């Protein structure tokens, strides 16, 4: 079932109604298990894929049970190593068909959300080895891994948070306003993912190869990041809304990423749950070990580890040259960002650095530069290396040629428009609280404006539902292909 469809919307409303008609937590758990199974059934294409999925869940549960009985750091390393091999094999990155017997050779399989399941498993394994994990059963573990609102592309929820909601099963008295806000968020997500994102995608993908190269470049350069944000953040809004309707508080994944002032800030706002996972289980773990072992080298090695962590984030998207380049760009960006900050602190001192960071002109410039840095990196996300390079080369060539003319070309006019947009963004940014990971995330206002009265919220939800239905119907009638979640393939 496509998560961005009216059928999904109808199913969610039925699921929420039926779910809340069950009085006992156990009944709700079993009902949710059934719903998760049915949703999964619509995605698993064949028996072999089912077997792979069950194998993965079974093996990881066995490893967790073993860790629960005898926690050990060495076991963590062994289990992680083994499951990574299994993961690489199931994803098709590791061809073992020559060494495996015929009965075990892999045919065409599609295991949705495998990389997200891997992250969740590793987090559980590490936390369990350190006595930080809540009690779990096979039922709660299976539902944690396969819940329909995190299966496709996250957010990567921590098990303890899931377990709390799983045990509670939304037994606390609920607020109509909160429910309406969750619905509003879900519907906004559908509009972003199902209407806005395809419109932008059409603009980016439907470019005529014979059109002006600068125009093609500008549309690809600015359009794809917008499309990707609408697509992925729209999905996140949908699943967070779903989760909240069933009493599950999912973590946020986005926080105005294109208003980031540097590469590190960007990754604290874009796909936040992935960033936090990499920060906690790769970067912090490795840096702590380095800082304890060789404290004299901790600073330079810290930069290397920052680079490595973001490189991993890049190649996680796909084992291709273009994603490796994407990872290298962001690895370098983050490492250099940290080095730059340290250098500034050494040069300006603490007070000077504070003044520097609070300077609004510098902030504005930083946001513009970071946005363009991100757009540049996304060229390698959307295109292969050769395609991106050819487009860049052609665009730069034309730009150089134009720079020698005095005529005000449309590109310069577009630059003026862009500067205006950036100024507008700066004004909007200025009205929001300061950054530092404590900004209210995308979604409910979080107290920034007075809450809408109940009946107005009802009206808003009704209006959004009608809008979603009308626009989805219009797009369906115009034979648009169904919106696809980009991050589902990672």
């Amino acid at each position: 079932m496509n998560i961005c469809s009216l059928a999904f919307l109808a199913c969610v409303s039925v699921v929420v109604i039926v779910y809340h008609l069950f009085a006992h937590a156990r009944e709700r758990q079993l009902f949710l298990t059934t719903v998760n199974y049915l949703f999964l059934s619509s995605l698993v294409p064949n028996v072999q894929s089912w077997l792979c999925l069950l194998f993965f869940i079974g093996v990881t549960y066995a490893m967790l049970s073993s860790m629960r009985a005898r926690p050990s750091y060495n076991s963590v390393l062994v289990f992680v190593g083994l499951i990574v091999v299994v993961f690489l094999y199931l994803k098709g990155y590791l061809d073992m068909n020559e060494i495996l017997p015929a009965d075990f050779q892999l045919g065409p399989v599609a295991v949705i959300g495998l990389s997200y399941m891997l992250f969740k498993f590793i987090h559980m394994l590490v936390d369990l080895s350190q006595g930080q994990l809540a009690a779990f059963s096979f039922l709660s573990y299976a539902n944690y891994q396969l819940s329909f609102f995190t299966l496709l592309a996250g957010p990567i929820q921590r098990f303890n948070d899931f377990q709390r909601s799983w045990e509670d099963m939304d037994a606390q008295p609920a607020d109509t306003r909160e429910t309406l806000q969750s619905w509003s968020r879900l519907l906004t997500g559908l509009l972003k993912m199902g209407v806005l994102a395809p419109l932008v995608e059409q603009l980016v993908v439907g470019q005529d190869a014979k059109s002006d190269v600068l125009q093609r470049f500008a549309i690809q350069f600015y359009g794809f990041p917008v499309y990707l944000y609408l697509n992925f953040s729209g999905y996140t809004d949908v699943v967070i809304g779903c989760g909240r309707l069933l009493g599950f508080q999912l973590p946020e994944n986005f926080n105005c990423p294109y208003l980031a002032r540097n590469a590190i800030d960007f990754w604290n706002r874009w796909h936040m749950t992935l960033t936090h996972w990499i920060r906690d289980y790769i970067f912090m773990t490795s840096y702590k070990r380095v800082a304890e072992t060789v404290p004299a080298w901790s600073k330079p090695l810290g930069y290397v580890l920052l680079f490595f962590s973001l490189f991993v984030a890049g190649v996680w998207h796909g084992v291709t040259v273009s994603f490796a380049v994407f990872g290298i760009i962001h690895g370098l960006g983050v490492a250099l960002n940290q080095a730059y900050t340290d250098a500034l602190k050494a040069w300006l001192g603490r007070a000077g650095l504070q003044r520097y960071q609070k300077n609004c002109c510098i902030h504005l410039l930083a946001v513009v530069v970071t946005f363009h840095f991100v757009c540049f990196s996304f060229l390698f996300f959307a295109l292969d290396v050769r395609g991106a390079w050819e487009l860049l080369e052609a665009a730069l060539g034309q730009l150089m040629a134009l720079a020698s003319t005095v005529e005000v070309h449309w590109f310069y006019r577009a630059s003026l428009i862009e500067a205006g947009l950036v100024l507008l963004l700066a004004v909007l940014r200025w009205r929001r609280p300061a950054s530092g990971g404590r900004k209210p995330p995308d979604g409910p206002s979080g107290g920034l404006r007075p809450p809408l009265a109940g009946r107005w919220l009802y009206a808003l939800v009704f209006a959004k539902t009608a809008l979603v239905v009308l626009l989805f119907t219009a797009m369906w009638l115009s034979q648009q292909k169904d919106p696809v979640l980009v991050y589902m393939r990672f």
Partner: protein
Amino acid sequence: MPDVRARVQDIFRDVFDDPAIVLRDDMTAGDVDGWDSLAHINLIIAVERKLGVKFATAEISRMKEPGQNAGSFLRLIEAKVV
């Protein structure tokens, strides 16, 4: 525990190289200059070494969540020291 609070405050001053830091319960990462991920780990290592405690990955990560502050950090340390 005043002893723990004082020792943690000294560690903060040492790690962030700012003798003017005064630990408050409502203090967060945004209130201390340079409290980024690298500095956070350095702080954790210093607390572990000087107070003889060990933090789990989840505990380190939880400290960075919204709603966590120096007060919750101190309570965690005090629970481990006891």
